[in-house]
């Protein structure tokens, strides 16, 4: 128990060291999370459009196939 408190106390500098590590962790985790969320949103928005294009192409080719 004493070792843990000693460790957390960091020789009296815990109040500066732990916030440094904490804010670094928070900022970097948020950065990763927001980046991933943005990517997933865009990917989700793309899916219907891609399918739309595919079906139109197929329609086009079947039409052309029928015409020839």
């Amino acid at each position, binding site marked *: 128990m004493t070792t843990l408190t000693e460790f957390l106390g960091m020789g009296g500098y815990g109040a*500066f060291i732990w916030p440094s590590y904490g804010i670094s962790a928070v900022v970097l985790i948020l950065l990763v999370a927001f980046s991933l969320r943005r990517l997933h949103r865009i990917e989700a928005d793309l899916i219907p459009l891609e399918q739309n*294009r595919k079906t139109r192409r197929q329609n086009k080719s079947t039409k052309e196939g029928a015409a020839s």
Partner: protein
Amino acid sequence: MAIDLHKFANPARFLRITAVIFPWAAALTLLLLGIGLYFALFVSPEDYQQGNTVRIMFVHVPAAWMSMSVYSMMAISAAVGLIWKHPVADLSAKAAAPIGACFTFLALVTGSLWGQPMWGTFWVWDARLTSMLILFFLYLGYMAIWESYDDPSKAAKAAAILVLVGAINVPVIKFSVDWWNTLHQPASVATMDGPKIHSSILTPLLIMGTAYMSLFVTVFIIRVKAEILNRRLRMMRLVQLED
């Protein structure tokens, strides 16, 4: 249409290559962060002068390194984008900016948390700290430009001009501690006569530095992919409008 093909050709290759790198970069980041933090918090000794506060260095210095490297990378990308009109160059500068801004913010905050117990103040207006703050504002301005233009190709050019103008700040940050009498101490690692840090402290620092670097690569890949897909999304919506 030939123009469209040109716009997609390179990004497609970029996406293929990064898809291979991504899992390795992500795994490396986690591994290095794990080892680095273990060394930083448990193995590394106290400094003879600064005691335990030297541990702040392991999150402060890598962030500061990255803030400047990311900006330099953006400046190079911006120049490439302006001169050769390479489509991925503009997007990669745009994708890197928020990451660089985060690193700069962290360097400033952890630096002031280190400064208070050691120097006796959270902040001083010396050359190193001030130029670092300017760097942070430059990142913010860069991102604001991207937000302010409706036309992405215009935004890319305007943002590139700003990055290149601000690039003059990077050598100022780097050499500020040598050019002026600052409160901030001179460079410890990249010096002419080798590192001035004992290996037991230098090792965790370098591990953390590499971890931050690979974290940057990981997030950068995610963000560039998002930008490329976003551009494709925009194009497809326009095509839909035309029909």
